[in-house]
């Protein structure tokens, strides 16, 4: 369903007081970000869509990819698309942290330092105080650092010296890890993987896109005028609007719960999906519905998102190489039931 014509964001001036009032506006914002990121990252449209879904669905993503495949470019482009119109000075648009084995929790959360001038301890904000945080090689650091980051992701706050510091509402983490080079790593346990909305496995881009990348390298490209940025406030408002206005039918809830139950009952699965994952799935489905031009969640949204949402939360018995296959098999029945339910 396409929305009615003109969005009310006719003059999207960054930092301006323009508010997001309708789903059309929300979609326009999402499309604007998408256009900008697509301009910078070529041949990654499915990944960009998933990242957008996570961004508007208030989740975080874990990219599993080889080095040099455009993860950082993607995260930067995303950070670049958002203008900070928030009053809090400590929060920046974009930060990147490279995780190493000798990293300490305070390196990412921030630390209390003694200010000799005022003779008081002052909090020095760490890199988590950003809208978009790119965490490279998340599995290369020690579990306590991982845990600190994951607390920040889940609670949107950090606690240093018994003082809690709130993060921005729009706190979005893009973490990466290398799927192959696993010597000396601390793989994330399932409980921590569970906090990521998606674990996206990126394949190499296709030939045409790669050629395009080579052709455009080194030549500074002039970004077309219409690729405007969006403000942080617009994005947060859009998030709330999507949550409120995109309809999720009880039948869709039933379908999700049924898929989870089928997965848990599967003999190949030793640990099924969590209830949290179902809760996280709802805003993601709503966002995808919006991106597809609908004001309600449809079966195709579930079909599209079930595998990236559930795949990394499963523990399967040895011999099963792809948990994604388990998920796709598990969702057949409930999706069929959902399709039948629409005929009654």
């Amino acid at each position, binding site marked *: 369903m396409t929305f009615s014509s003109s969005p009310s964001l006719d003059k999207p001036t960054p930092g301006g007081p323009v508010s997001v009032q309708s789903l059309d506006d929300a979609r326009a914002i999402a499309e604007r970000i998408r256009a900008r990121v697509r301009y910078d990252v070529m041949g990654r449209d499915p990944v960009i869509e998933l990242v957008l879904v996570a961004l508007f669905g208030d989740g975080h993503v874990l990219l599993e990819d080889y080095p040099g495949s455009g993860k950082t470019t993607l995260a930067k482009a995303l950070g670049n698309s958002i203008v900070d119109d928030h009053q809090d000075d400590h929060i920046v648009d974009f930060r990147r942290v490279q995780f190493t084995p000798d990293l300490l929790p305070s390196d990412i959360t921030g630390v209390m330092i003694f200010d000799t001038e005022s003779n008081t301890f002052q909090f020095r904000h760490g890199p988590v105080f950003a809208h978009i945080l790119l965490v490279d090689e998340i599995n290369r650091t020690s579990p306590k650092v991982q845990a600190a980051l994951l607390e920040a992701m889940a609670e949107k706050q950090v606690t240093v010296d018994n003082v809690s510091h709130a993060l921005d509402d729009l706190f979005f983490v893009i973490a990466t890890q290398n799927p192959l080079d696993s010597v000396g790593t601390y793989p994330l346990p399932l409980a921590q993987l569970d906090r990521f909305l998606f674990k996206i496995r990126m394949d190499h881009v296709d030939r045409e896109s790669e050629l395009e990348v080579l052709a455009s390298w080194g030549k500074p490209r002039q970004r077309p005028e219409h690729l405007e940025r969006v403000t942080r406030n617009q994005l947060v408002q859009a998030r709330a609007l999507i949550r409120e206005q995109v309809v999720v*039918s009880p039948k869709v809830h039933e379908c999700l719960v049924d898929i989870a139950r089928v997965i848990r009952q599967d003999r190949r699965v030793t640990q099924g999906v969590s209830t949290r994952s179902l809760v996280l799935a709802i805003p993601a489905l709503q966002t995808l519905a919006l991106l597809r031009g609908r004001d309600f969640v449809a079966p195709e949204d579930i079909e599209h998102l079930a595998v990236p949402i559930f795949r990394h939360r499963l523990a399967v018995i040895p011999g099963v190489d792809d948990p994604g296959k388990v998920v796709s098999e598990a969702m057949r029945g409930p*999706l069929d039931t959902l399709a039948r339910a629409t*005929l009654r």
Partner: protein
Amino acid sequence: MTTRPAAESRGVLATLAVIHVGVVWLYLREIATDAAIVTGGLSAVAGALLARYADRRFLRLPLGALLGLGAALLAFPLGRAVLHGGWGPSAKATILIGDSVTFGLLALGVVFGLRFMASRVRAFAALEALYVVGSVSYMFATHRNQMIHRPRWLSDWAWSRGIDPQLLLQGFGVAVAVLAVVTLLRRQKALKLALSALTLLLVGWLVYRGAEHLHIEPDIDTSGLSLTDDQDGRGGKGDSDGKGDSGGGQGDGKADGQAGGSGSGGGAGPQPPPPLPVAVAVFHEDYAPENGLLYFRQQVLSRYDGHHLVAADAPWDADVLTTFPTDATLKAPPVQAEAFHKRMPVSMFLLVDHPQPVALTASVELAPIDNPAPRRFVAAYSAISYVLAQPTIRLVGRKSVPDDWTEEQRRHYLETPDDPRYASLGEEILRDLDPRFAGDDLMKAYTIKQWLEENGFYTRKERHESADDPAASFLFGSLRGYCVHFAHAAVHLFRSQGIAARVAIGYAVDNRMRGAGSTVLILGDRAHAWPEIHLAGVGWVPFDIYPEQSDEPPPRIVDQSLESLLGELARDDKTGGRAEEPLSDPFRIPWAAVGFWLLLGFGVTLALAYAVKVGRQLAWMAGGDPVRAYVATLDRFSDVGVARRPDETRERHAARLAALAPSMPRLTALHLKLTLGAPTDEARAEALALCRQVRRELAGSVGAPKRALGWLNPLGWWFTR
């Protein structure tokens, strides 16, 4: 484990189970009891279900195959154990249980193994298809030796319309093969499908050809009966004096009468008149007699009047029905033991007047039926005949004269001419008897029969008419004579050795001379006399003598067109030629009733299906409900075979349908909005309008024949999901 096919839907599983039940029936119908067929069918269903369960539980492929094979192999020893252990309450029940165990387990194992393997690895589906096609090939494999009158129901129909059944059978085979391929190897690429179909056709053809060369050695030598020899014979040796063979001068003339009209003028005309057809017999069940001869008995001679054996008055030979049934069923007293015999329903249509009814030996019931062609047939009646269910030699170990016979009965059936030569010759012959069988009446009879066959010479030239005792003249003289002499001599010898015997008179027709279908045309020159002996607990058993030496020309072959013509006339009777009494076997399944109820059930189901179909189409027009309208629209697609697959979302299905109706994706989006989103009045109106639009588009893109078929399809809505 290369390709693992997707799990079958329930509908496909049900279809396959039905196919397997049919296949089990085809395989078992000739060799198993009805109870075993039913058990086999149930086991096939169980096998199919178990295979699905095992597949879902990830049973390993070799293990599953072994399980199936094991069950199938276990079937025979277990069945034998039941039979030998005598576990049932009665002998009959034991046989039924043993049979059911054997074939039930066999069907379970085979169906489980095949289904499991096919559901696990696509390639094994070919094996399953082969098994299915094989059942049909097996059914038609009975045509080896050119016996294309099996199955009778098909070939009779074909013959009567002048179609060569062979063509029909081959066509049938092709149809079944294609059906099997389509059903069992679904969802393949077209090329693969075509290749598999061709392969299967080739295999089916090879099986058919192979079965053709599987000759069963005939029990008696029929080489002399081939067509060309017959034509030689027709060349006219002219030594047959027409008739007179039956009963000759012996009887009281009735036998002559029966042979009637065929020009009993003796002598050797240069061209003997062709033998007259005297009766037509229509068999309602398959029957292959032990020695290749069908005996149609008219009367028996058991009383010795001092010179000959003559027909005895009542109460003797009460088991032979001597009157025609007019309005009620005639039943013979239970002399023939049911346990050793098979009931054989036969309809008889007489072309020539006979003084007594002629029927297949030994008839126990005669019932009147409508004469289908009164100008052609002088009498029509149905008979239930008891034929031996096993070879006569199996009856060894029985006495001839039962203990409960009265002294009078003994005297009647053991009376011999007052001539000591019979007894002394009999004893002389029996000296050769293996001492192990010394007291056995049946073995004694066999020894005498064998002696007569070796030493007798069959000829019609010596008639022994002038002799006071023609049998003695034959037996102690030249040993040259014809059937009447052999029969009388044998009966006298049997009786002299304490074996109750009598002479039966009627017709003996070579079963192999039968032409088309279930009809037997009896010619006058097939008149015959043969001995019958009595075995305690069994009844009267035909015990014919076949002399090894003969100067007879081979018998004429029956004119097949005449046979089929008369057979067609005869089959026209309204009762279907069957005896009207229900068959008394308690384990027999009333197939006719089952068929009727199945047909009725099918009809009702069909009517219901159409009612639902029409109802669903009308529902949306009445209420204007967009959901009902969408369902009705989907039904139209299902009718032409593009229903949603179970693993397809509604959107994908709509995208697939866009080729037929471009508005379908839009309509589906609206439908989902109405059911899963926030419905608006505009969306409702638009959806209703689009439903009409989609129907128009569908009508435009689907050809009229396909659309018409779609309207006729009663079950299209069933696949709407």
